[in-house]
């Protein structure tokens, strides 16, 4: 006797507790197993690229904050790198060090959230996330000391940063950084041998090295598949060539590998911040640039290694104070190219966990 079966369509709609933001998937099931997955985007498409053509370069810095809102400092920095390349603006030493400290703190905060929400998706509802939030609140306090904002900073300017660090920042940062390795060890001890984590993530969602390179993946997802590529070391921007740090890679390419790469990168962030704190000189923090300055005609691509991958800005200037074309290279949209290949053949719960391990932020996917 043969059973007649039919494929079933389930819509994981834009509002769902575990799709990180408004993301929709049309999933076709053959029994319990996923046969096909079609992602639908655009529920947060705000038209930033078009709006940016109507505002001057300086007025576009707040737009960059709101794209990947979990890593605003990195977005600001990437945009400032692109404009500085376009207009040949010099950045003073102290400003470079401050930018590195901010970018690495931001990477720490973003990875804490990524790991926290990854565990949230697996069913450990809120407990690991609240632990990670405890540290994140301390980082947000540091940012508030510097620029007054907790989430969307608008701190970097072309030619440096907008204002110098207050006096209480360095001692507070030192207290935080000295305690951080103990906290990372605490998370690792709590989670690394956890049976549920191991059973649900080892061997699930394996991304091969060739496919990762072919699909333009970048960031921790690429490094977890065995590709040793990190823009901070291979195409150094700002002053990253003065710091010693390891590039964490893993050969397996599954969800567990991505989790381990993020934990390893958190430790490297702590090390880079400690080196920057020792080397930071005194001096100015900003080269004065006119607010409605006109860069020369041309184009430039400025990029950096953000917490989610290679974040780049491609700017075309026609000599006026507003950009002619403001294009963003979104690492999270491009990383989602492989979601279908990673999820097909697994069950729905595994697809959610795989999706969580790619670590996306809808503000950047949709812009």
């Amino acid at each position, binding site marked *: 006797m043969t059973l007649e079966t039919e*494929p079933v369509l389930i819509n994981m709609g834009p*509002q769902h507790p575990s799709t990180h933001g408004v993301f929709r998937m049309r999933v076709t099931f053959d029994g319990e197993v996923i046969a096909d997955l079609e992602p639908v985007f655009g*529920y947060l498409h705000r038209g930033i690229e078009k709006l940016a053509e109507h505002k001057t370069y300086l007025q576009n810095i707040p737009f960059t904050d709101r794209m990947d809102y979990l890593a605003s400092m990195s977005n600001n920095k990437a945009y400032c790198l692109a404009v500085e390349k376009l207009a040949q603006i010099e950045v003073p030493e102290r400003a470079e060090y401050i930018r590195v400290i901010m970018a690495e703190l931001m990477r720490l905060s973003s990875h804490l959230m990524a790991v926290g929400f990854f565990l949230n998706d697996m069913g450990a509802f809120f407990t690991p996330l609240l632990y990670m*939030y405890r540290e994140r609140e301390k980082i947000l306090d540091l940012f508030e000391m510097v620029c007054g904002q907790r989430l969307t900073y608008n701190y970097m300017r072309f030619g440096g940063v907008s204002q110098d660090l207050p006096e209480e920042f360095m001692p507070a940062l030192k207290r935080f950084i000295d305690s951080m390795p103990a906290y990372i060890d605490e998370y690792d001890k709590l989670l690394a041998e956890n049976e549920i984590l191991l059973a649900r993530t080892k*061997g699930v969602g394996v991304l091969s090295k060739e496919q990762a390179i072919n699909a333009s993946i970048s960031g921790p997802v690429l490094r977890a598949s065995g590709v040793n590529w990190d823009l901070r070391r291979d195409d150094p921007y700002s002053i990253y060539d003065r710091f010693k740090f390891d590039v964490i890679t893993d050969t397996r390419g599954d969800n567990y590998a991505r989790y381990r790469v993020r934990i390893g990168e958190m430790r490297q962030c702590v090390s880079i911040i400690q080196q920057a704190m020792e080397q930071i000189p005194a001096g100015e923090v900003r080269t004065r640039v006119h607010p409605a300055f006109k860069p020369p005609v041309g184009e430039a691509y400025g990029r950096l290694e953000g917490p989610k991958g290679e974040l780049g800005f491609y700017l075309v200037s026609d000599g006026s104070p507003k950009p002619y074309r403001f294009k963003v290279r979104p690492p999270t949209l491009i990383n989602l190219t492989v979601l279908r290949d990673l999820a097909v*053949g697994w069950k729905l719960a595994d697809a959610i966990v795989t999706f969580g391990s790619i670590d996306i932020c809808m*503000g950047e996917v949709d812009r």
Partner: protein
Amino acid sequence: MEERGPQVEIERPYVSEELDRVESAEIQSIIAASKQPCPDPVAWLDEDIKQNLLLTTTEQLIDLGKRFSVWPAAMGLACCAFEMISAASSRFDFSRFGMEIMRASPRQADLMIVAGTLTWKMAPALRRIYDQMAEPKWVLAMGSCAISGGAFRGSYSVVPGVNLIVPVDVYVPGCPPRPEGLINGFQALHRKVAKDKLIKR
């Protein structure tokens, strides 16, 4: 340990273009229908309770129950969602004010917190979730994007204010509002819920 299931070649049981077309028709119709803002709701009580004569102390008890156990359904769309999650986390904890559990399902929620920018593509889904909530229900618009479109007003795909789609009770300004600001918004909502009785009379 899980094993990868058989990867069968299956034809999709739906035509993707047709689903897109149906969704697009829904979006166009909600754009056409949302030219005027929905009026701000003043009172939410049922007509028949208005007619009954209730004792003052019973009214107060009912009112206490309603006011201090409003469960939110989170509509976390963009950056404001993270300040809302911070407000729910251990540092700023809004369950002290009765918002004990952030429900994912709208059927079990009283308050819808719209946090973030609403786009026209998302508007039908928002309206559907609002319609699924049981009365009495309230809406809180969090952040400047939900109040008026915010930094993105004028864009081709952003709804200039959530009150074109659903009637809003409380507006919390900020970009993003601090968790304390959101808690201030909840206290305003509690005062409004308490005032309902007085206005009816």
